[in-house]
């Protein structure tokens, strides 16, 4: 695939801006795994509401993109059974490791957190290794 220079830089800036607004106004870290996962536990309504609003926003943002661009193309990279395994691992891993690409990668590094820098280096290198092995096995 050809590098998406403009989309990558503009999209990254929007993601950064989103994280800045959340910290500046709400004092919160924009970590999607935590925001989604916290909805699974019992908590007061106001704690649930802002998280639900953020998720609705994600879907709404993608809706705006579709309205402007006409379509949203995604190309699955794994069979259904592999997708299920992948999903379970992402769920377990982000809960146990307290974050994902957004919480550790974008926000944690910006806070200069040692934990987040370590986590980001680990998940990116392990993911690269996984892709390498997956291709060698022809999966």
């Amino acid at each position, binding site marked *: 695939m050809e590098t998406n220079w403009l989309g990558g830089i503009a999209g990254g800036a929007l993601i950064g801006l989103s994280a800045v607004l959340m910290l500046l106004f709400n004092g919160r870290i924009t970590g999607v795994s935590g925001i989604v996962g916290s909805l699974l536990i019992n908590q007061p309504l106001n704690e649930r509401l802002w998280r639900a*609003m953020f998720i609705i926003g994600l879907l709404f943002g993608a809706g705006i993109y579709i309205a402007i661009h006409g379509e949203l193309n995604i190309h699955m990279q794994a069979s259904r059974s592999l997708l299920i395994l992948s999903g379970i691992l992402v769920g377990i891993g982000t809960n146990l490791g307290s974050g994902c690409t957004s919480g550790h990668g974008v926000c944690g590094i910006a806070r200069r957190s040692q934990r987040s820098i370590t986590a980001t280096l680990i998940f990116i290198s392990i993911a690269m290794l996984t892709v390498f092995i997956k291709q060698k096995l022809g999966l």
Partner: protein
Amino acid sequence: MKNNLVALIAGILFGLGLTISEMVDPARVIGFLDITGDWDPTLALVMASALLVTLPSFSFILRCHRPLCADKFSLPDKKNIDKPLIIGASLFGIGWGLGGFCPGPAITALVTLSPDVMLFVLAMLVGYYLVNFVNKYNVKK
């Protein structure tokens, strides 16, 4: 009330960012993670661009007394690099490499109503809940 509106706007910006950068497409993510093939640096551009915004802003914001619409900053209190962090990040890395989806893009890609995406998100929630369940059981013991 105001912080719900902020969360909605932040969500919209985040969703737009993930779609404009095409990070919702697992093919883009795998293109970055596959360093032996025709390497696609787009994901690195997205992260670098996001960090260019967050790095200077965060250090400025965190020097403020409190956020504009809340009583205090709610930041993670863990400081040390422990076993759960390392094991968790590794498991997440395996899952991310297998499917090309991490939580943000997967949730955002639900708008396509693709059964594959729904299946992934469901599995992700099951995995997340599993850790809560085991933790609760361990505390009870």
